[in-house]
């Protein structure tokens, strides 16, 4: 049994009177690739943002190794530097080149020297196939290229877990493949990942744990083979049927 890295315990989140997440409970162990699927508005992205503390959970906790990171006296910045995040809208720093995007965190947060940061950044940019573009600025890149740089930026921090928030949803169809293949390679390399996605094939083939969310609760979870072949919950069945039709 691998060591648990992130455990979400009884997590709830509401915006005013609007309850978005209700009593969410799951565990991610080292090397796991967990995909979170479900209809739009079911709270998938909010869950991911709560794990990264971009949103403060209303109740419940997020345990990173043995520490409750939602408690008092926890420095959220230090925690976030160990948990990478890739956004739907890339969020590359538009005032920096591709290389600077991948070195700024290493230099400012991890306090690495410029040369080490640079070598490290180029290594990860090679991995996502973006090394030739180190001098480009984000506005000069296509969506798929931006997302690959964003993945390299997250990897350059050498995080223990990588969170993906619908990484391919803002991309043109022909660019989805390049990003998914980078993610597939990461999963094969043993990276621990939590992926919110609408790419059912990715969830089925790459992940080892699938969480199906509906209306702010986990409706069903399990191994991808079981969940996709033989969904127990009628909502899961309905949701997956819609994808089979397409």
């Amino acid at each position, binding site marked *: 049994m691998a060591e648990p890295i992130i455990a979400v315990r009884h997590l709830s989140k509401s915006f005013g009177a609007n309850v978005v997440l209700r009593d969410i409970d799951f565990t991610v162990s080292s090397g796991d690739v967990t995909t979170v699927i479900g209809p739009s508005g079911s709270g998938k992205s909010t869950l991911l943002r709560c794990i*990264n503390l*971009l949103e*403060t959970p209303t109740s419940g906790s997020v345990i990173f190794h043995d520490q409750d990171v*939602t*408690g*008092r006296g926890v420095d*959220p*910045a*230090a*925690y*976030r*530097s*160990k948990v*990478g*995040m890739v*956004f739907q*809208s*890339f*969020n*590359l*720093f*538009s*005032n920096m*080149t591709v290389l600077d995007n991948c070195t*700024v*965190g290493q230099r*400012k*947060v991890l306090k690495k020297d410029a040369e080490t940061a640079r*070598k490290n950044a*180029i*290594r990860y940019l*090679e*991995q996502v196939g973006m*090394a*030739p*573009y*180190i*001098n*480009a*600025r984000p506005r*000069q890149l296509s969506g798929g290229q931006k997302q690959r740089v*964003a993945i390299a*930026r*997250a990897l350059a*921090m050498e995080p223990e877990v990588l969170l993906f928030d619908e990484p391919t949803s803002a991309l043109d169809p022909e660019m989805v493949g390049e990003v998914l293949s980078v993610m597939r390679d990461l999963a094969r390399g043993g990276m621990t990942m939590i992926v919110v996605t609408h790419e059912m094939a990715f969830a089925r083939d790459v992940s080892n744990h699938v969480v199906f969310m509906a209306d702010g609760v986990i409706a069903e979870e399990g191994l991808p083979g079981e969940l996709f072949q033989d969904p127990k919950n009628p909502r899961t069945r309905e949701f997956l049927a819609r994808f089979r039709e397409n």
Partner: protein
Amino acid sequence: MEIFAKLGYDMTRLWSAYWVKYLGGMGSTLVLALVATLIGCVIGLACGILNTIPVARQDSAPKRFGLKLVRALVRIYVEVFRGTPMVLQAVFIYYGLPYFTNNSMRFDNIWAAAILIVSINTGAYMAESVRGGILSIDPGQTEGAKAIGMTHFQTMTSVILPQALRNIMPQIGNNFIINVKDTSVMFIIGFTEFFAFHRYITGVNNLYFPSAAIEMIGYLTMTLIASFLLRWIEKLMDGSDSYKLVQADALTMAAGTYRHPKKVEDTLERNLEQERRM
């Protein structure tokens, strides 16, 4: 026609007699406006950072109170110094300090006093410009910075303010040009800039209108050059539209400098080498 000929003649006479004073005054005006605008920008950026420190629910009560107090102080500063005329601020700071402190605090250097007054005034306007600049940046930029573990200060100085600064460059230019003109009220504390020399020169002769015409041309020349330079700076900040791909060069390999690029490390080395040569 005749009247213009006479005006031109008088202006030439004035200029040849007093050009050293006019040019010296323009110099003082430009130095004061430039230094005060730069310091004002720094004040504005600092206010921007202070104003945006996030308050979380789990923060302790003293921290939350402290942050609220800081915001209130910044707000009071902005409202007071934006809401009163600079000429009165000059009077209160330059004459008021010795008056209220029984002469124990006063300015011995007129330049220090003038720079302080104009900087504080500009800072109040810049604080609001910077606030607008920060609002204009996509919140995703902040989230991207937070997600790699940056603190609020690092996020602001590395990511948000450089972009905000670019967006408010036209406003900074506005402030500089306003300062070039409005520093003329510093005569109240005896600071001799461009307009002060006009008052001095027309005091010793009665060529009031020709001197005013010289002043007009002088101010317009300064502000036009300033606008031109500001546009140029904006272009520089935007950077180049194109970029160079850093790719493996077949010739470099054939030269026998490297082994076969079978590993990622080799390709990395090659790219670094390529970069250094360019």
